[in-house]
Each structure stands twice: as C-alpha cells, then as structure tokens.
C-alpha cells in the first residue's frame, strides 16, 4: 500500500498527519476518514483530533503514548483511509440575501460585474463541502464556491459581525456562528443557530458535511 500521509512531530503531545498539501475534496475526505477511524478505534491515550484542509492533528497524552507508538498505529489505520467523500444529503441553510442582512451583496455584484440576483443564484445553486471548522466555535470553512462571485476581504475587518451572517472571503464562503469580528463580505444571514452549547455536538455543521443555501424572504 502506498504511503497516504506523512507524520510530523508537533510538540511533545501531538502528531501532524499531512496528506497532499492542497485544497481538494478527495484529500479532505481522507482527513475525515482517518479522523473517524481514530475515534472508532478508541485508542487509549489519544485525546482528540483536529481535521483541517489536508491534515489531521492528533493530540495524545505523552504519559500513555509516544511518537513512534502513535505513528505505528496511524500507519495501520492509514491503509483503511478512503478517498470517497461521505455520502450524505446536504444540510439546507435558509438564507435571507441582501438588505440589512447582507450589506455587501451589492459590492460583491459590482465587483464581479453581476446583478445582485445573479450573485444569489450562483451562491445558492452550488453544493458546498465543510472542509474544516475553526476561527470561532462552529465557523465552517466551505469549499465549492464559484470563482464568478469571489471577492477580496474587507480592508479592515468589522468589529462585530452578527451571528448567522453569511460571507464571502476570497473564493471561500462561510457562516459566522457567533457574533465576532470579521473581514468577509457579508451577503446574507441565516436564522438557523449554528452554535449551541446546550447541544452535543454543539455545532450544526460538522467537518465533512455537505451544505446548500436556500434563499428565503423575511416573514413580515
């Protein structure tokens, strides 16, 4: 079996598992596959994993495991990693585009020489992949947005972006789960709660999930 990944020491209590260094759904599927294999195996001494675009950070307790031991276990599991993405129906995110909820929609349209309606159509017709979660609790980095609506970030970030705001940052799109500072162009807002500590898991979107945006209008 060919080597799927490289294990790099990350401090004295983690391993950085590096797959092919690119943003690619197949590579990302391997990351989530390995993460799931590790959690199913319930290996004593593994604390948790952090999946990212093309890598998985595996945290361990140095009292119970050391680097060579964990690399050996990971290599065993590596043979079972799958390139296939998780087959699941997309999670539907209702979104109100534009107006007070999407103050940058017109800017995104103008920047790309499109009408606001066209931006909405392009944004809501794609299926997105949750590559990873980070930045704030529950913030999903979504891949799969059309380059036709790619827009550079704000020159200086807003101090407060309301929870549920949907933004475009470069050729990525994402949803702000909690009120936080943010530099992405805000095109709309979802009424869904993406982060709720009363629930376990506390997030609506999980790494590896598929997402679709459904345009809605505000109930007056």
């Amino acid at each position: 079996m060919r080597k799927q990944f490289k294990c790099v020491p990350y401090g004295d209590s983690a391993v950085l598992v590096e797959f092919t260094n690119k943003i690619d759904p197949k590579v990302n599927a391997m990351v989530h596959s390995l993460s799931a294999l590790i959690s199913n195996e319930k290996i004593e001494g593994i604390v948790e994993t952090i999946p990212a675009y093309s890598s998985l950070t595996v945290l361990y307790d140095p009292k119970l495991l050391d680097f060579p031991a964990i690399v050996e276990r990971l290599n065993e599991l590596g043979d079972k990693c799958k390139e296939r993405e998780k087959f699941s129906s997309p999670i539907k995110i209702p979104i109100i585009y534009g107006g007070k909820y999407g103050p940058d929609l017109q800017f995104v349209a103008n920047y790309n020489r499109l009408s606001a309606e066209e931006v909405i159509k392009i944004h809501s017709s794609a299926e997105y992949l949750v590559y990873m979660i980070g930045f704030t609790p529950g913030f999903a980095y979504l891949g799969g947005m059309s380059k036709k609506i790619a827009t550079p970030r704000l020159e200086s970030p807003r101090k407060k972006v309301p929870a549920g705001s949907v933004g475009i940052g470069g050729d990525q799109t994402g949803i702000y789960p909690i009120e936080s500072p943010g530099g992405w162009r805000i095109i709309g807002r979802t009424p869904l709660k993406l982060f709720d500590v009363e629930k376990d898991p506390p997030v609506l979107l999980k790494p590896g999930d598929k997402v679709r945006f459904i345009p809605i209008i505000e109930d007056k």
Partner: protein
Amino acid sequence: MTKLIIKSAGPFTTIQDLGRYGYQKYGIPPSGAMDGFALQIANILVGNKRNEAALEITSAGFSAIFQGECEIAITGADLGATLNGKAITPWQSFHIQNGDVLKFEKVKTGCRAYLSVGGGWDVPKILGSKSTYTRANIGGYHGRKLKNADVIEIGKSYHFAFRNVKIPSHIVPTYSNHKVRVILGPESNRFSKKEINKFLSSSYRLTGQSDRMGYRLSGPTLRAKRGKHDILSNGVLLGAIQVPPDGQPIVMMSDHQTVGGYAKISTVISADIPLLAQLKPGDNLSFKHVSFEEARKAYLSMQNILDLLEKQIRKEPKVFFVKIGEKFYKVKVRACSKIVPKEIGFSPR
C-alpha cells in the same frame, strides 16, 4: 450554602479547570488553566479531584468575602494575598471562617494565582468542563470574567482538614527562569538554519498584546524562506509558536484558535507551559531546543510530582463532622489500604 462574594474582581478573573477537550474539531478551544501545574496542586491541597475548577486570578486587585466555612488553597503567582489583612503565603491551604476577607494586593512573582475551594466552585459543566472561554461566552461563571458583586456558590465538600497543608518548598516554582524549552516543528522547515538559530539565541519580550489566547512577542524579526509565512491552515495547539509575515512570533495559549494559517517554527514542551503562564507583559524570555526524550521526561517528572503529592496528602487524616441524633461528633479518618469487616455474632458467655 457557602459562597464567595466578589468585592473587587481584579483585571481578569475566570473559572478554569484543566480544559474542555474533544471539541477542537468544532472550533472550540480547550481553554482551561494557563498554569495547569499550579491548578492541580491547588486542588490537591483541598482534597479535590485534580481537574476541579479554581479561580484563575490575573494580577493584583482581587478581593472577596466568604459566607460560610470552607477550606481554600492558593497556588501559582504570589500576588500578595492577605486574609483579614494578614499576609499569607501561597502554596498552602487555609481554613476559612464566615466573613473572612481575602485580598490579592500586589504582584510579587508570576502573573496568575489559583484559588481553589474544597468542594469546588459550583458552576455547571458546559461540554464536560467548567472552564471559561470568554470570547464565545462558554462555561465558567455565565461565560464571562468575574465582575464586582458576583456571588459564586461553593460545592459540597465531604471533609474539613483543620490543618494548614503546605507544599514542600523545593516544589514551589520561583518563576525566575525564563528559558522556555521547545521542540522544533511542525513547520520549522519553512525557516533557514540561520533564522532558527536567531530564534533560539535571541531574547524576546512579552508585549502588552498578550492574553489567554496568545502571547505576542517582540524581538528579532524571523523571515520564512522566500517570505512564505502562510501555510494551508492546519491545527493549532497550546504552545505552538506561529510566525506571521511581520516576523514577530506569537505563542498560542489556552484560548488559542483551533486552526491557523501561519507557519509554526516550534512548539513549547508541555512541562514548560506553566512557566509561560506566569510571564507578564514586559518580561523577557528565550527559547531552548530540546530533544523529544527530554520533553517527555520533563512531562513525566511533573506528573510524578503531582501523583506523589496527591498520595501524601490523601494519607493525612481528614476531619468530619457527623450528626447522630441531636449530637455532633468530630471524626478523624485516616485512609488505609484494606477494610477488614468485623464479624458481628453471638459470643457465648
């Protein structure tokens, strides 16, 4: 119920245990005490589980009054604690009477003190932990730092040790050593040998932009090869040292974000995180590269100290009050390895 009434919350006081693990994949940082060693000893001193929550008191200015009797311990930084106006030395436990006033008046050594109570601070566990993550309002006392006039309830304690327990002085850290040990990686290959040597041989200063999320350092600029400081975002850990394009390193601390896109030149070893936790803005520090083996040894020896202390203190007799009928009894209990049941039967006379 025993309570603590906050008179003055100080600049930044939060409830922290050993952290919230298992949720970093959802973007939730572990949080937890910056100085996990001091936290665990604070708990051991009052007979709590080692991962129970304590107040993490940053710098001087905190004062509070107790309502009811309890046992407390103070560890970590020496912030000039006084009990009813009398100076007390940290790294020991104290018995508290109703109305006792505790103050932290002046920073002497370190930066963060831990205040534990027998029975723990009675706040709900959120996602398995009492730790406060203020940026997302998770955990601790209503998800935030303490304010004046807050009232925190104290959990039930099952014993009172009416004796001040003290940690042997050779175990008490002095926080005078500012040499932090690191392991190179995971992205040290982004930097030339010359830049890595510069990083390891220079002195850096902790800037004012340093908090529970991360420490921004100021010192010699570090340049990645071909100026490539950006990486495809990957996991970020406690102690990871990022180098953004401005070349000034950032050490990630307890409330660090879970993924990041800057190259990490090295990672602080677990055993030296408590040392970092006790640095103040303006302090100088430098880094020393150590082997994997040394890092592991240092971690295991720290765990060993904690295990031994816990064992020793468990051996001390505990004092309980027992009410039988209308009468109170004071009962001293000492742990023993085996309980031998005694047969109760008829003895022929």
